């Protein structure tokens, strides 16, 4: 018993990259176990930079998602199945890099070119992805020991946006390494109509730099060391609405540095793993009468153990967030320790189950118990999970209005997926229902003062369908795809304003659909894509709504040896549309990308 408890105390953090299939380390075969989410949970979408020119395109392609671009705060955020950006963990080396203060990370800052393993999970495994995992999960990693090509790219768009990047990958003896730099300047200039007149908009003035280094070293035949660094800098104008005066200036700087060191030790029966991650985030926001500076240091430790023969994963984590911001009256700190266990069970080749648990202790308080039960029987998969979401530090400690008595949001999630595989057609379907209680919302309690409260109980339910077929015509290939998503996300209980019950949450479309057709030859392809986003309400009482958006886009790629070109033309129908009212989006615009692999 003592030996067993001792073993439990030595915990392992398992990353998905290490447990795919079978892993050979010199002469020792390690029988691999599937990604850390278990046997049954696979990514629902994987980033591929030969398809997507940037991360926002990838996010927009996720069935059931709504990407909010050019929002009043300047962030690019994702609403997935009606849930907010702060409900989506963005995991880098296991660390959730969503901002600890307000829970939201600007997803457009993710340099897709510099990572070769970006995955989106529509439900994922909430009890392993951690607190705030209510809207799935987005993981960002590099496959350290997998060979990839080096590449250079440059990109230019008619909106006066320019990007360039270099990723160098190689290996020598026991070393594997990737180092990359990506830099961009985005002006986002376009014309728009306002009050019957034409104006030119210079939205962003964004300068963005990223440096990513990923190295792996085989210490011995059964031991590896891995080091990762990600430095990120962004300096930009935050656009104001077209109804605001052009003289209103808002400016933001982000300067983030993240580093991780991990160690793995393999035996014939198990894998031991330990890692340490440090992240320093600096955000400086300026507006008339506002000059806020937030510095947050995050320290993150993992230790874990994997039993390969009798699959079992045990994991221990500790995370410390320390924030020194000029709007807090004192330094704010949060400490969270977690224990999680995942038990995969392969009943047969056709039927597998994963069961996992997590218990957090935050600032010496036991948090709600989290669990996930998922199973797969042939093409049928179902997931049930309970999780919770911690309030951000701003919610708790904002000097006037912060509410230290705020309860955590609690969620129950369920999803059933089924895939039909016909000879020439694949159809995927999903139905889901997710419930969040104690939903946090800021409301006024005096004309000039606001406070967060646990405002309502929200239910998100819906259905997603995706059909794909491909066939050959002589030496060409045609790929057709159609996606449809239906979502209703409403407050089923509202503790402050009962009139807002059963109203669709703002910015969440009820209907969304996409059709694409791709014609592929050996060295080139041509594609057409139509996206429909239904009306979205932008007032909680459904009295204000944004019109439906019809987006027709064209794409063409050409490959010649190590060179490739991609031309994309967006908004062929020249629609005037908004994701947020009075923040116009570009009309017809084009983007050209060149890549060289070596």
């Amino acid at each position, binding site marked *: 018993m003592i030996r067993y408890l001792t073993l439990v105390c030595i915990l392992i953090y398992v990353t998905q990259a290490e447990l795919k299939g079978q892993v050979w380390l010199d002469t020792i075969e390690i029988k691999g176990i599937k990604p850390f989410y278990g046997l049954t949970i696979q990514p629902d979408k994987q980033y591929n930079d030969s398809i997507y020119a940037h991360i926002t395109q990838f996010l927009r392609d996720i069935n059931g998602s709504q990407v909010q671009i050019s929002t009043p705060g300047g962030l690019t955020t994702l609403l997935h199945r009606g849930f907010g950006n702060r409900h989506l963990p963005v995991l880098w080396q296991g660390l959730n890099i969503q901002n600890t203060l307000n829970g939201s990370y600007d997803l457009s800052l993710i340099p897709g070119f510099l990572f070769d393993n970006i995955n989106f999970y529509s439900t994922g495994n909430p009890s392993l992805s951690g607190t705030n995992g209510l809207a799935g999960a987005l993981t960002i990693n590099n496959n350290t020991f997998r060979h990839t090509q080096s590449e250079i790219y440059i990109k230019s768009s008619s909106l006066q946006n320019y990007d360039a990047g270099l990723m160098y990958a190689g290996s020598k003896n026991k070393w594997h390494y990737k180092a990359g730099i990506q830099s961009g300047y985005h002006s986002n200039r376009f014309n728009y109509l306002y009050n019957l007149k034409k104006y030119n908009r210079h939205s962003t003035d964004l300068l963005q730099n990223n440096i990513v280094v990923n190295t792996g070293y085989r210490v011995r035949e059964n031991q590896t060391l891995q080091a990762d660094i990600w430095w990120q800098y962004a300096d930009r104008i935050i656009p104001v609405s077209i109804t605001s*005066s052009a003289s209103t200036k808002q400016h933001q700087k982000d300067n983030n540095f993240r580093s991780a060191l991990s160690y793995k030790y393999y035996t014939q029966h198990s894998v031991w793993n330990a890692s340490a991650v440090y992240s320093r985030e600096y955000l400086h926001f300026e507006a008339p009468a506002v000059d806020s500076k937030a510095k947050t240091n995050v320290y993150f430790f993992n230790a874990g153990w994997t039993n390969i023969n009798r699959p079992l994963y045990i994991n221990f984590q500790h995370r410390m967030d320390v924030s020194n911001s000029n709007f807090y009256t004192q330094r704010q700190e949060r400490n969270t320790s977690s224990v999680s266990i995942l038990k995969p069970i392969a009943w047969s080749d056709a039927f597998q189950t994963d069961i996992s648990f997590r218990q957090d202790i935050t600032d010496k308080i036991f948090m709600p118990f989290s669990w996930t039960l998922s199973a797969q029987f042939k093409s049928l998969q179902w997931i049930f999970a309970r999780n919770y979401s911690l309030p951000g530090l701003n919610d708790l400690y904002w000097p006037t209005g912060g509410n230290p008595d705020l309860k955590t949001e609690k969620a129950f999630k369920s999803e059933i997926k089924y895939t039909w595989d016909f000879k020439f057609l694949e159809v995927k379907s999903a139905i889901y229902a997710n419930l969040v209680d104690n939903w946090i919302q800021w*409301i006024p309690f005096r004309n000039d003062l606001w406070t967060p409260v646990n405002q309502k109980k929200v239910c998100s339910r819906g259905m997603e369908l995706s059909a794909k077929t491909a066939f050959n015509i002589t030496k060409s290939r045609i790929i057709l795809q159609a996606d449809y998503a239906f979502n209703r996300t409403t407050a089923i209980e509202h503790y402050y304003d009962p009139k807002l019950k059963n109203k669709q949450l703002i910015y969440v479309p009820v209907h969304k659909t996409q059709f694409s057709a791709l014609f592929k030859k050996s060295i080139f392809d041509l594609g057409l894509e139509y996206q429909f986003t239904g009306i979205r309400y932008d007032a*909680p009482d459904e009295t204000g709504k944004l019109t439906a958006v019809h987006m027709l886009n064209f794409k063409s790629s050409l490959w010649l040896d190590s060179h490739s070109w991609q031309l994309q033309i967006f908004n062929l129908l020249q629609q005037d549309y908004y994701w947020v009212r009075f923040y116009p989006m570009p009309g017809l615009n084009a983007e050209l990308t060149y890549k060289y692999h070596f």
Partner: protein
Amino acid sequence: MFNRFILLSLFIATLFSCTKDDNSIQKDYSRGTFIVNEGLFNSGTGTITYLNDDEQIDDIFELQNPGLVLGNIAQSMIFHDNKYFIAVNNSAKIVVVNAVDFKYIGEIPVNLPRYFVNSNGKLYVTSWSSDFTSGFINLIDTKTLTISKSTAIQGLAEKMLSKDNNVYITVTASEWDPLNHHVVVYDTQKEVLTGTIEAGDNTNDLALDKNGDIWLLCSGFTNYTDPGLSTDGSIHKIVNNKVAFSKKLPNGCQKLVVNNNKSELYYLNGSSVIELNITKPDEDSKAVYSGLFYNLAIHPVNDNFYLLNAKDFQQKGELTILNKDFKQVKNVTTGIIPAFVYFNN
């Protein structure tokens, strides 16, 4: 023959003449009650709700001017020279419309315009600098729709009250501003600042009583970083440009109005409407109605109270109309963030 030809041509012309796609309502808007709704900060447009007896027209500006929106944060409005002037704060302009049909006439560019006052036949508006450090009182040329004179004030110029040849201006200020507890006096004949009257922290609003005395409400400073450093509000009576009475109030009191008798004052304190009798100002404040309101006004004819509720500042707001006995008469749905009531009777 020629006459028949002309008649035929005219007839054909009427068949093909252009018709304007115009849903505007033919009506006289020179009398009525107007609710100025701010709209969502930074991502919305202000709107005007029109009320007259039992009639309500929403978004009257957009209805009468198809294809146009007011702009971000409609702050206040006033009638002058057969026109309505609407301060659109975050769009840095004053929109001018015809008072009868509410049709757009033009705009006056001015940074962060706030509130108006008519004084001796002239129209003035307060405004702020874009860095929020100073304010201005601006004289408007209502014929040419320009600012003919702009006088700088230290601190953020806010509400105004006209009495005799003077305009009294409150100054929203922080504890670091030199004029952090003053009312500024402006001579409308000489068009110059003539002095200040020192009162309480953060002067907010003004009213004139039946004796011709000025009442000044001060909010106190709210320290958003360290609430423990916030200061008290206060109310003062100003007689012959001197403070004759002062009384402390809780921090955050705002929006001062007077009834038609000019004997009772009313203001907002947290989630209460407070009444103060001008002859017994020393008595404890009396809460006459409860609710979280963004602004209040009193009808100049029937003494009904107009209480504006912005709710969560995201959905349409609500106007609650109470009679003199504080009994609810009517509830009206307004635009988003109803902020100001203007009566033109």
